[in-house]
Protein backbone atom coordinates (compact mmCIF):
# COMPACT_ATOMS: atom_id res chain seq x y z
CA UNK A 1 0.00 0.00 0.00
CA UNK A 2 1.34 3.39 -1.02
CA UNK A 3 2.04 5.92 1.66
CA UNK A 4 -0.79 8.14 2.69
CA UNK A 5 -0.67 11.16 0.35
CA UNK A 6 -1.51 13.44 3.25
CA UNK A 7 1.51 12.57 5.38
CA UNK A 8 3.57 15.08 3.39
CA UNK A 9 1.54 17.84 5.00
CA UNK A 10 2.21 16.74 8.55
CA UNK A 11 3.91 19.24 10.77
CA UNK A 12 6.41 17.89 13.28
CA UNK A 13 8.67 19.42 15.83
CA UNK A 14 12.34 19.95 15.03
CA UNK A 15 14.38 20.33 18.16
CA UNK A 16 13.04 21.01 21.62
CA UNK A 17 9.56 22.06 22.58
CA UNK A 18 9.30 25.81 23.14
CA UNK A 19 6.36 27.16 25.04
CA UNK A 20 5.23 30.66 25.85
CA UNK A 21 2.48 30.37 28.42
CA UNK A 22 0.08 27.83 27.04
CA UNK A 23 1.17 28.40 23.45
CA UNK A 24 3.45 25.95 21.74
CA UNK A 25 5.78 27.84 19.42
CA UNK A 26 8.26 25.05 18.78
CA UNK A 27 10.45 25.16 15.69
CA UNK A 28 8.80 22.82 13.17
CA UNK A 29 9.46 21.74 9.62
CA UNK A 30 6.99 24.46 8.53
CA UNK A 31 9.06 27.05 10.39
CA UNK A 32 12.20 25.64 8.79
CA UNK A 33 10.86 26.21 5.29
CA UNK A 34 9.54 29.65 6.15
CA UNK A 35 13.04 30.56 7.33
CA UNK A 36 14.62 28.94 4.27
CA UNK A 37 12.34 30.79 1.86
CA UNK A 38 12.95 34.13 3.54
CA UNK A 39 16.68 33.52 3.62
CA UNK A 40 16.73 32.53 -0.04
CA UNK A 41 14.83 35.71 -0.97
CA UNK A 42 17.10 37.89 1.14
CA UNK A 43 20.29 36.31 -0.21
CA UNK A 44 19.22 36.50 -3.85
CA UNK A 45 18.02 40.08 -3.63
CA UNK A 46 20.95 41.16 -1.53
CA UNK A 47 23.40 39.86 -4.13
CA UNK A 48 21.21 41.27 -6.87
CA UNK A 49 21.27 44.77 -5.42
CA UNK A 50 24.86 44.92 -4.20
CA UNK A 51 26.63 46.50 -7.12
CA UNK A 52 25.15 48.50 -9.92
CA UNK A 53 26.82 47.75 -13.22
CA UNK A 54 25.61 49.15 -16.53
CA UNK A 55 25.32 45.60 -17.84
CA UNK A 56 23.65 43.63 -15.01
CA UNK A 57 24.73 40.08 -14.31
CA UNK A 58 22.15 37.31 -14.03
CA UNK A 59 21.26 37.71 -10.37
CA UNK A 60 21.07 41.49 -10.64
CA UNK A 61 18.87 41.11 -13.69
CA UNK A 62 16.65 38.68 -11.80
CA UNK A 63 16.27 41.10 -8.90
CA UNK A 64 15.60 44.07 -11.12
CA UNK A 65 13.19 42.21 -13.38
CA UNK A 66 11.14 40.99 -10.41
CA UNK A 67 11.23 44.51 -8.98
CA UNK A 68 9.85 46.04 -12.16
CA UNK A 69 7.42 43.14 -12.62
CA UNK A 70 5.82 43.74 -9.22
CA UNK A 71 6.02 47.51 -9.67
CA UNK A 72 4.18 47.27 -12.98
CA UNK A 73 1.60 44.89 -11.51
CA UNK A 74 0.86 47.34 -8.69
CA UNK A 75 0.71 50.44 -10.86
CA UNK A 76 -1.53 48.65 -13.38
CA UNK A 77 -4.07 47.44 -10.83
CA UNK A 78 -3.93 49.92 -7.97
CA UNK A 79 -2.49 53.05 -9.54
CA UNK A 80 0.20 55.37 -8.25
CA UNK A 81 -1.43 55.78 -4.83
CA UNK A 82 -0.39 52.23 -3.93
CA UNK A 83 3.30 53.06 -4.05
CA UNK A 84 3.80 53.08 -0.24
CA UNK A 85 2.55 49.48 -0.12
CA UNK A 86 4.99 48.31 -2.78
CA UNK A 87 7.43 46.77 -0.32
CA UNK A 88 4.67 44.81 1.39
CA UNK A 89 3.20 43.42 -1.82
CA UNK A 90 6.68 42.65 -3.12
CA UNK A 91 7.58 40.71 0.03
CA UNK A 92 4.21 38.97 -0.04
CA UNK A 93 4.59 37.90 -3.66
CA UNK A 94 8.16 36.75 -3.16
CA UNK A 95 7.37 34.92 0.07
CA UNK A 96 4.43 33.01 -1.40
CA UNK A 97 6.37 32.32 -4.61
CA UNK A 98 9.42 30.98 -2.81
CA UNK A 99 7.34 28.90 -0.40
CA UNK A 100 5.46 27.39 -3.35
CA UNK A 101 8.67 26.76 -5.26
CA UNK A 102 10.46 25.22 -2.29
CA UNK A 103 7.50 22.88 -2.02
CA UNK A 104 8.25 21.61 -5.53
CA UNK A 105 11.54 20.10 -4.40
CA UNK A 106 11.00 16.45 -3.43
CA UNK A 107 10.93 15.66 0.30
CA UNK A 108 10.35 19.28 1.23
CA UNK A 109 7.44 20.84 3.01
CA UNK A 110 5.04 23.30 1.38
CA UNK A 111 4.35 26.12 3.79
CA UNK A 112 1.48 27.51 1.75
CA UNK A 113 -0.37 24.20 1.73
CA UNK A 114 -1.50 24.95 5.25
CA UNK A 115 -4.77 26.81 5.64
CA UNK A 116 -3.60 28.53 8.78
CA UNK A 117 -0.64 30.16 7.04
CA UNK A 118 -2.62 31.40 4.06
CA UNK A 119 -5.49 32.43 6.30
CA UNK A 120 -3.23 34.52 8.51
CA UNK A 121 -1.77 36.24 5.45
CA UNK A 122 -5.19 36.78 3.88
CA UNK A 123 -6.83 38.08 7.05
CA UNK A 124 -3.89 40.39 7.67
CA UNK A 125 -4.38 41.79 4.17
CA UNK A 126 -8.14 42.00 4.66
CA UNK A 127 -7.88 43.85 7.99
CA UNK A 128 -5.16 46.22 6.74
CA UNK A 129 -7.08 47.03 3.57
CA UNK A 130 -10.23 47.71 5.57
CA UNK A 131 -8.33 49.97 7.98
CA UNK A 132 -6.65 51.82 5.06
CA UNK A 133 -10.04 52.27 3.40
CA UNK A 134 -11.60 53.74 6.53
CA UNK A 135 -8.59 56.02 7.11
CA UNK A 136 -8.63 57.30 3.51
CA UNK A 137 -12.37 57.75 3.10
CA UNK A 138 -13.84 57.73 6.63
CA UNK A 139 -17.35 56.32 6.65
CA UNK A 140 -17.49 57.05 2.95
CA UNK A 141 -15.72 53.75 2.53
CA UNK A 142 -19.08 52.10 3.17
CA UNK A 143 -20.11 53.40 -0.24
CA UNK A 144 -18.13 50.42 -1.52
CA UNK A 145 -21.20 48.32 -0.71
CA UNK A 146 -23.56 50.57 -2.65
CA UNK A 147 -22.79 50.34 -6.35
CA UNK A 148 -23.94 53.29 -8.41
CA UNK A 149 -26.58 52.92 -11.08
CA UNK A 150 -28.54 50.19 -9.31
CA UNK A 151 -32.36 50.43 -9.12
CA UNK A 152 -33.59 51.30 -5.63
CA UNK A 153 -35.72 48.16 -5.49
CA UNK A 154 -32.67 45.95 -5.89
CA UNK A 155 -30.48 47.99 -3.58
CA UNK A 156 -31.02 46.07 -0.28
CA UNK A 157 -30.27 42.78 -2.01
CA UNK A 158 -27.17 44.17 -3.77
CA UNK A 159 -25.84 45.68 -0.56
CA UNK A 160 -26.22 42.37 1.28
CA UNK A 161 -24.46 40.54 -1.56
CA UNK A 162 -21.67 43.10 -1.63
CA UNK A 163 -21.14 42.85 2.12
CA UNK A 164 -21.04 39.06 1.97
CA UNK A 165 -18.58 39.12 -0.93
CA UNK A 166 -16.42 41.63 0.91
CA UNK A 167 -16.39 39.59 4.11
CA UNK A 168 -15.61 36.40 2.24
CA UNK A 169 -12.49 37.91 0.73
CA UNK A 170 -10.03 36.54 3.29
CA UNK A 171 -11.59 33.09 3.06
CA UNK A 172 -11.55 32.97 -0.75
CA UNK A 173 -8.04 34.38 -0.88
CA UNK A 174 -6.64 31.89 1.63
CA UNK A 175 -8.56 28.84 0.45
CA UNK A 176 -7.59 29.48 -3.18
CA UNK A 177 -3.88 29.30 -2.45
CA UNK A 178 -4.10 26.54 0.14
CA UNK A 179 -6.41 24.29 -1.88
CA UNK A 180 -4.36 24.70 -5.06
CA UNK A 181 -1.17 23.78 -3.29
CA UNK A 182 -2.64 20.91 -1.37
CA UNK A 183 -4.52 19.41 -4.30
CA UNK A 184 -1.48 19.61 -6.57
CA UNK A 185 0.87 18.02 -4.09
CA UNK A 186 -1.63 15.32 -3.15
CA UNK A 187 -2.13 14.48 -6.80
CA UNK A 188 1.60 14.23 -7.39
CA UNK A 189 1.93 11.99 -4.37
CA UNK A 190 -0.93 9.76 -5.58
CA UNK A 191 0.61 9.38 -9.03
CA UNK A 192 3.97 8.69 -7.45
CA UNK A 193 2.32 5.98 -5.39
CA UNK A 194 0.85 4.47 -8.55
CA UNK A 195 4.30 4.29 -10.08
CA UNK A 196 5.49 2.20 -7.15
CA UNK A 197 2.45 -0.04 -6.96
CA UNK A 198 2.26 -0.73 -10.72
CA UNK A 199 5.95 -1.49 -10.84
CA UNK A 200 8.25 -1.74 -13.83
CA UNK A 201 5.50 -2.97 -16.16
CA UNK A 202 2.67 -0.50 -15.70
CA UNK A 203 4.43 2.30 -13.87
CA UNK A 204 5.46 4.22 -16.94
CA UNK A 205 2.07 5.80 -17.57
CA UNK A 206 1.67 7.33 -14.09
CA UNK A 207 5.35 8.29 -14.22
CA UNK A 208 4.81 10.33 -17.37
CA UNK A 209 1.73 11.84 -15.74
CA UNK A 210 3.85 12.68 -12.74
CA UNK A 211 6.41 14.44 -14.92
CA UNK A 212 3.70 16.44 -16.67
CA UNK A 213 2.12 17.27 -13.32
CA UNK A 214 5.42 18.57 -12.01
CA UNK A 215 5.55 21.08 -14.85
CA UNK A 216 1.95 22.02 -14.25
CA UNK A 217 2.56 22.40 -10.54
CA UNK A 218 5.51 24.72 -11.11
CA UNK A 219 3.22 26.83 -13.27
CA UNK A 220 0.53 26.72 -10.58
CA UNK A 221 3.09 27.66 -7.93
CA UNK A 222 3.97 30.81 -9.86
CA UNK A 223 0.40 31.53 -10.86
CA UNK A 224 -1.01 31.24 -7.35
CA UNK A 225 1.64 33.57 -5.98
CA UNK A 226 0.79 36.01 -8.76
CA UNK A 227 -2.95 35.68 -8.14
CA UNK A 228 -2.44 36.17 -4.43
CA UNK A 229 -0.44 39.34 -5.01
CA UNK A 230 -2.70 40.74 -7.70
CA UNK A 231 -5.85 40.15 -5.62
CA UNK A 232 -4.15 42.02 -2.80
CA UNK A 233 -3.53 44.86 -5.25
CA UNK A 234 -7.17 44.82 -6.33
CA UNK A 235 -8.41 44.95 -2.74
CA UNK A 236 -5.95 47.77 -2.10
CA UNK A 237 -7.24 49.55 -5.18
CA UNK A 238 -10.79 49.37 -3.75
CA UNK A 239 -9.55 50.95 -0.55
CA UNK A 240 -7.41 53.66 -2.20
CA UNK A 241 -9.54 54.66 -5.17
CA UNK A 242 -13.19 54.43 -4.23
CA UNK A 243 -14.93 54.20 -7.60
CA UNK A 244 -18.49 53.37 -6.67
Amino acid sequence: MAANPMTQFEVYRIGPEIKIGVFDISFTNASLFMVLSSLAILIIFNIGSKKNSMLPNKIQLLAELSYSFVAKMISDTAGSKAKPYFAFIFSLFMFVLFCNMFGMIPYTFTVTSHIIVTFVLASFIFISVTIIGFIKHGFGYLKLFVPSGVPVVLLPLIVIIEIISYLSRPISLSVRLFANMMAGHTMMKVFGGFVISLGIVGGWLPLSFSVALTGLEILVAFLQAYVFAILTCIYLNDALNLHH
Partner: protein
Amino acid sequence: MIKKIFFQSIFFNFFFLKEVFAAESGGMPQLNPEFWVSQIFWLTLTFGILYVVLSKLILPKISVNLELRKSQIQENIEAAESQRENSESKLKEYDEIISKSKLEAKNIFKEAREKALKTINSKRETLDKQIDEEIKKAEQEISILKKGAPEKINKIAIETSSELVKKLIGTDVNNSSLSAIVDDLSKKNRNKYYDN
Protein backbone atom coordinates in the same frame (compact mmCIF):
# COMPACT_ATOMS: atom_id res chain seq x y z
CA MET B 1 -15.75 9.08 18.94
CA ILE B 2 -16.77 7.24 15.77
CA LYS B 3 -19.63 9.63 15.34
CA LYS B 4 -17.24 12.57 15.57
CA ILE B 5 -14.90 11.15 12.95
CA PHE B 6 -17.89 10.40 10.75
CA PHE B 7 -19.17 13.95 10.96
CA GLN B 8 -15.71 15.33 10.40
CA SER B 9 -15.24 13.17 7.34
CA ILE B 10 -18.56 14.24 5.86
CA PHE B 11 -17.84 17.89 6.51
CA PHE B 12 -14.33 17.88 5.09
CA ASN B 13 -15.18 15.53 2.28
CA PHE B 14 -17.49 18.20 1.08
CA PHE B 15 -14.58 20.61 0.96
CA PHE B 16 -11.62 18.55 -0.14
CA LEU B 17 -10.29 15.39 -1.66
CA LYS B 18 -11.59 11.90 -1.21
CA GLU B 19 -8.20 10.28 -0.85
CA VAL B 20 -7.76 12.02 2.44
CA PHE B 21 -10.26 9.83 4.10
CA ALA B 22 -9.45 6.66 2.30
CA ALA B 23 -6.26 6.56 4.30
CA GLU B 24 -6.28 4.90 7.68
CA SER B 25 -5.06 7.82 9.80
CA GLY B 26 -7.86 10.06 8.55
CA GLY B 27 -8.22 13.80 8.47
CA MET B 28 -5.99 16.44 7.07
CA PRO B 29 -2.89 17.48 8.97
CA GLN B 30 -3.79 21.06 8.05
CA LEU B 31 -6.81 20.95 10.32
CA ASN B 32 -4.90 19.65 13.30
CA PRO B 33 -4.57 22.72 15.49
CA GLU B 34 -1.62 21.35 17.42
CA PHE B 35 0.95 23.55 15.62
CA TRP B 36 -1.26 26.42 14.51
CA VAL B 37 0.13 28.83 17.05
CA SER B 38 3.66 27.81 16.17
CA GLN B 39 2.97 28.36 12.47
CA ILE B 40 1.38 31.75 13.09
CA PHE B 41 4.32 32.76 15.28
CA TRP B 42 6.98 31.67 12.83
CA LEU B 43 5.09 33.12 9.87
CA THR B 44 4.83 36.47 11.58
CA LEU B 45 8.48 36.38 12.58
CA THR B 46 9.95 35.33 9.23
CA PHE B 47 7.62 37.40 7.10
CA GLY B 48 8.11 40.38 9.38
CA ILE B 49 11.90 40.15 9.14
CA LEU B 50 11.66 39.60 5.39
CA TYR B 51 9.42 42.64 5.00
CA VAL B 52 11.57 44.90 7.16
CA VAL B 53 14.86 43.92 5.51
CA LEU B 54 13.43 44.11 2.01
CA SER B 55 11.69 47.45 2.51
CA LYS B 56 14.48 49.15 4.47
CA LEU B 57 17.63 47.78 2.90
CA ILE B 58 17.23 45.94 -0.36
CA LEU B 59 14.34 47.47 -2.30
CA PRO B 60 15.59 51.08 -1.98
CA LYS B 61 18.96 49.93 -3.34
CA ILE B 62 17.36 48.21 -6.34
CA SER B 63 15.22 51.27 -6.96
CA VAL B 64 18.28 53.54 -6.80
CA ASN B 65 20.17 51.20 -9.12
CA LEU B 66 17.33 51.22 -11.63
CA GLU B 67 16.95 54.99 -11.45
CA LEU B 68 20.69 55.51 -11.86
CA ARG B 69 20.85 53.25 -14.88
CA LYS B 70 17.77 54.89 -16.38
CA SER B 71 19.17 58.38 -15.88
CA GLN B 72 22.56 57.36 -17.22
CA ILE B 73 21.01 55.84 -20.32
CA GLN B 74 18.89 58.96 -20.70
CA GLU B 75 21.96 61.13 -20.35
CA ASN B 76 23.83 59.09 -22.92
CA ILE B 77 20.92 59.30 -25.31
CA GLU B 78 20.72 63.05 -24.80
CA ALA B 79 24.46 63.43 -25.33
CA ALA B 80 24.26 61.41 -28.52
CA GLU B 81 21.31 63.51 -29.63
CA SER B 82 23.12 66.76 -28.99
CA GLN B 83 26.21 65.50 -30.78
CA ARG B 84 24.09 64.49 -33.73
CA GLU B 85 22.52 67.95 -33.81
CA ASN B 86 25.94 69.49 -33.54
CA SER B 87 27.27 67.49 -36.44
CA GLU B 88 24.18 68.30 -38.47
CA SER B 89 24.63 72.02 -37.88
CA LYS B 90 28.30 71.72 -38.76
CA LEU B 91 27.37 69.92 -41.94
CA LYS B 92 24.91 72.69 -42.74
CA GLU B 93 27.56 75.32 -42.12
CA TYR B 94 29.96 73.45 -44.34
CA ASP B 95 27.34 73.22 -47.08
CA GLU B 96 26.62 76.92 -46.75
CA ILE B 97 30.30 77.80 -46.96
CA ILE B 98 30.68 75.68 -50.06
CA SER B 99 27.66 77.16 -51.77
CA LYS B 100 28.77 80.67 -50.79
CA SER B 101 32.26 80.13 -52.12
CA LYS B 102 30.82 78.70 -55.31
CA LEU B 103 28.71 81.83 -55.73
CA GLU B 104 31.70 84.02 -55.02
CA ALA B 105 33.81 82.18 -57.52
CA LYS B 106 31.08 82.63 -60.10
CA ASN B 107 30.90 86.35 -59.35
CA ILE B 108 34.65 86.77 -59.53
CA PHE B 109 34.70 84.94 -62.83
CA LYS B 110 31.89 87.11 -64.17
CA GLU B 111 33.56 90.30 -63.05
CA ALA B 112 36.85 89.28 -64.54
CA ARG B 113 35.17 88.45 -67.81
CA GLU B 114 33.34 91.76 -67.90
CA LYS B 115 36.51 93.64 -67.10
CA ALA B 116 38.39 91.82 -69.80
CA LEU B 117 35.58 92.47 -72.24
CA LYS B 118 35.54 96.14 -71.29
CA THR B 119 39.27 96.57 -71.73
CA ILE B 120 39.13 94.70 -75.00
CA ASN B 121 36.30 96.91 -76.20
CA SER B 122 37.97 100.13 -75.12
CA LYS B 123 41.25 99.11 -76.72
CA ARG B 124 39.45 98.16 -79.86
CA GLU B 125 37.69 101.53 -79.91
CA THR B 126 40.90 103.46 -79.44
CA LEU B 127 42.55 101.35 -82.09
CA ASP B 128 39.58 101.91 -84.38
CA LYS B 129 39.86 105.65 -83.76
CA GLN B 130 43.57 105.65 -84.47
CA ILE B 131 43.02 103.64 -87.57
CA ASP B 132 40.28 105.99 -88.66
CA GLU B 133 42.51 109.01 -88.01
CA GLU B 134 45.38 107.53 -89.91
CA ILE B 135 43.09 106.65 -92.76
CA LYS B 136 41.79 110.21 -92.76
CA LYS B 137 45.31 111.61 -92.70
CA ALA B 138 46.32 109.36 -95.50
CA GLU B 139 43.25 110.32 -97.44
CA GLN B 140 43.98 113.99 -96.86
CA GLU B 141 47.56 113.51 -97.99
CA ILE B 142 46.33 111.64 -100.96
CA SER B 143 43.84 114.35 -101.80
CA ILE B 144 46.53 117.02 -101.33
CA LEU B 145 48.83 115.01 -103.52
CA LYS B 146 46.01 114.57 -105.97
CA LYS B 147 45.46 118.30 -106.07
CA GLY B 148 49.20 119.05 -106.46
CA ALA B 149 49.86 116.30 -108.96
CA PRO B 150 48.68 117.95 -112.19
CA GLU B 151 50.63 121.18 -111.52
CA LYS B 152 53.81 119.23 -110.82
CA ILE B 153 53.29 117.11 -113.85
CA ASN B 154 52.76 120.27 -115.87
CA LYS B 155 55.96 121.75 -114.46
CA ILE B 156 57.90 118.61 -115.28
CA ALA B 157 56.31 118.52 -118.67
CA ILE B 158 57.27 122.16 -119.28
CA GLU B 159 60.87 121.63 -118.11
CA THR B 160 61.36 118.46 -120.09
CA SER B 161 59.74 119.98 -123.19
CA SER B 162 61.97 123.14 -122.92
CA GLU B 163 65.04 120.93 -122.55
CA LEU B 164 63.90 118.82 -125.47
CA VAL B 165 63.28 121.90 -127.58
CA LYS B 166 66.72 123.31 -126.61
CA LYS B 167 68.45 120.14 -127.60
CA LEU B 168 66.44 119.76 -130.78
CA ILE B 169 66.56 123.32 -131.96
CA GLY B 170 69.43 124.81 -129.98
CA THR B 171 67.51 127.87 -128.84
CA ASP B 172 65.61 128.88 -125.77
CA VAL B 173 61.91 128.75 -125.98
CA ASN B 174 59.72 131.08 -124.08
CA ASN B 175 58.51 129.27 -120.94
CA SER B 176 55.21 130.98 -120.93
CA SER B 177 54.29 129.81 -124.39
CA LEU B 178 55.28 126.26 -123.39
CA SER B 179 53.26 126.35 -120.24
CA ALA B 180 50.27 127.58 -122.14
CA ILE B 181 50.55 124.60 -124.48
CA VAL B 182 51.00 122.12 -121.57
CA ASP B 183 48.06 123.55 -119.70
CA ASP B 184 46.00 123.20 -122.76
CA LEU B 185 47.03 119.59 -123.21
CA SER B 186 46.56 118.70 -119.59
CA LYS B 187 43.13 120.23 -119.59
CA LYS B 188 42.30 118.14 -122.60
CA ASN B 189 43.61 114.97 -121.05
CA ARG B 190 42.46 115.62 -117.50
CA ASN B 191 39.28 113.78 -118.08
CA LYS B 192 41.30 110.89 -119.44
CA TYR B 193 43.56 110.35 -116.39
CA TYR B 194 41.89 111.98 -113.40
CA ASP B 195 38.33 111.21 -113.92
CA ASN B 196 37.80 109.81 -110.49
